[in-house]
């Protein structure tokens, strides 16, 4: 009934100040919702992206036994192909799967560097440089020099690690490691690049070297400690997992290797999924708090307009129309407030998305093994803006049922009351 809509609209301007305060309350809470959602998205996205890039790929294939002792980075449970055929053949067969874009072998091992002062423990990552450049952010984080080249005795290290060692790009460094046979070996490398990463792991603990070099010095020809599968996007993981498992089973390695989706290798991502659900309830709660302002206002407006509502009833307007009238009045406040909040929240999110929020100090106590970037960039997305807007508009309108029912329950005899 457009007449009721028109009337509700005009009524809003009757109490401009009150309407304004209500709209501000809604707008503020919706703004917070947009921003908080963008922030949480940013947090999750960066955590998931770092985890995928530097730990798990979309799917990670490792030895069953390796899984138990991953913290030790043991070399005696490698991924070395099917029935001794070697790694390359295995990579070829996995690459044949339609959804697999890249198969990335990595050889991760513990190593030591002895300085005058102390014994520095660190992790060596033997990699195919061009694959890493294509798959990870490492190119952006290489602030000096270049990535290692296959066949060369070269390493790339994090800035904090280099500072600890008192070395720089161009220097030589001798790295000690236990080989797959348990003997200690020492090899001298040239440092060709420096990484500056917000990840503690990359900045302080890791050095990159060419995969072939790592295989050679550790006596692990044609082996890796893990194989990462990369798909077009991570949503494909659930459908890709069984295919990969089938390939392994067909080649008689179904028992030996573990195939893990990226979510299975991080307890943090599971935690964040739970947190996201909890946050969604918190958003509703925030909007409900703002609704209290609207409800208070409308209850008073209903009280003020008792006679008018009675008159409309006397003229034959049914209670459901009166209910509708006030629902529309509250709903318009909800829509306008939510719109303002959603727009300003989006602007705020986009602004902070440029600058980021730095938690470096707060996360100092975190272990390097959590790939958490301390600088969080909220993600702006249309979905969040729409979500917050719809949430605000709907919750406010529903909340207005309380005062609207009060109005609808008024008797038409109110019109005849004196005073």
């Amino acid at each position, binding site marked *: 009934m457009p007449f009721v809509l028109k009337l509700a609209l005009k*009524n809003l301007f009757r109490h401009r100040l009150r309407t304004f305060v209500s709209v501000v309350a809604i707008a503020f809470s919706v703004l917070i919702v947009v921003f908080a959602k963008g922030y949480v998205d940013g947090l999750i996205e960066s955590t998931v992206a770092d985890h995928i890039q530097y730990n798990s790929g979309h799917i990670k294939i490792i030895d069953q036994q390796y899984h138990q002792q991953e913290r030790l980075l043991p070399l005696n449970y490698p991924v070395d192909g099917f029935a001794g055929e070697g790694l390359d053949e295995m990579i070829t067969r996995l690459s044949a799967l339609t959804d697999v874009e890249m198969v990335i072998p990595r050889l991760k091992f513990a190593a030591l560097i002895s300085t005058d002062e102390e014994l520095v423990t660190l992790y060596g990552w033997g990699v195919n440089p061009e694959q890493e450049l294509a798959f990870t952010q490492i190119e952006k984080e290489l602030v000096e020099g270049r990535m290692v080249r296959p066949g060369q005795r070269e390493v790339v290290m994090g800035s904090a690690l280099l500072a600890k060692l008192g070395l720089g790009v161009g220097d030589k460094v001798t790295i000690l490691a236990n080989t797959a046979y348990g003997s200690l070996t020492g090899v001298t490398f040239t440092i060709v690049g420096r990484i500056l990463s917000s990840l503690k792991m990359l900045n302080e603990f890791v050095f990159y070297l060419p995969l072939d070099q790592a295989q050679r010095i550790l006596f692990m020809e044609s082996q890796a400690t893990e194989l990462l599968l990369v798909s077009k996007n991570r949503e494909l993981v659930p459908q890709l997992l069984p295919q990969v498992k089938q390939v392994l089973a067909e080649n008689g390695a179904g028992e030996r290797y573990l195939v893990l989706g990226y979510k299975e290798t991080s307890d943090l991502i599971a935690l964040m999924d739970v947190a996201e659900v909890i946050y969604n309830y918190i958003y509703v709660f925030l909007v409900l708090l703002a609704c209290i302002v609207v409800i208070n206002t409308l209850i008073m407006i209903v009280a003020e307009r008792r006679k*008018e509502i009675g008159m409309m009833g006397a003229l034959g307007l049914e209670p459901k129309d009166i209910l509708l009238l006030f629902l529309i009045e509250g709903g318009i406040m909800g829509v306008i407030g939510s719109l303002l909040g959603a727009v300003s929240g989006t602007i705020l999110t986009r602004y902070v998305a440029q600058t980021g929020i730095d938690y470096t100090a707060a996360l100092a106590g975190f272990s390097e093994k959590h790939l958490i970037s301390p600088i969080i960039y909220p993600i702006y997305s249309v979905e969040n803006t729409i979500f917050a807007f719809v949430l605000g508009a709907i919750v406010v309108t529903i909340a207005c049922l309380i005062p609207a029912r009060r109005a609808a329950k008024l008797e038409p005899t109110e019109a005849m009351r004196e005073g």
Partner: protein
Amino acid sequence: MALLELKGVTKIYQQGKIEVPALRGIDLTVEQGEFTTIFGPSGSGKTTLLNMIGCLDKPTSGTIIFAGQELGRLTKKGLAQLRRCNIGFIFQSYNLIPVLTAYENVEFAIRLVGGRSKREMHEKVMQILADVGLAGLENRKPGELSGGQKQRVAIARALVKEPKLVLADEPTANLDSKTSEEVLEVMLKMNQELGTTFIFSTHDPRVMTYARRRLEVRDGLITQDTRGDGASVSH
């Protein structure tokens, strides 16, 4: 057939634990085309009686028959529909919607009835506003009108849907005597031209003189029923 018939109507309000009888047995018949006033002191049950006649409320006991329909059998929704088409209201404090123009306030009532085309409705509203003497003031809001003008809008609103009955609660209480007379002249004119039944309550003795039938209410009973020709029927 009488337009309205009340038989043994009582109304008791519950105020906490105390029962307050507002009407204590009213018998009344109103014919089509009457121009009747109800008067009596404050607290006499006058407003309650108007509520009953206007189908705003149901009696505690007794029957009310309006245009052949027994009100006791109707639901609230049924009552609303009955009022929508058949009864117009004029209130002491006008009760116009302040955010709407004079035209829109009148339009509000006719829209509720429905069943007419937009053009018909528009013509009807313009016509009735002209009839009550408000031609040219259609686009003013209540805040921009004088008391008498506001009450004319209210009369137009009551009459626009061509109801069988118009009920006016102290229509002149907030007006000076000259304006009061003007308003009553308008009501009388409409009564004569359209044959609409008018029932109005008042305190003002001069207003009463316009009525052709005068009902006095005291302590929840009709104590006097005087016709314009002077004949008196005691109850």
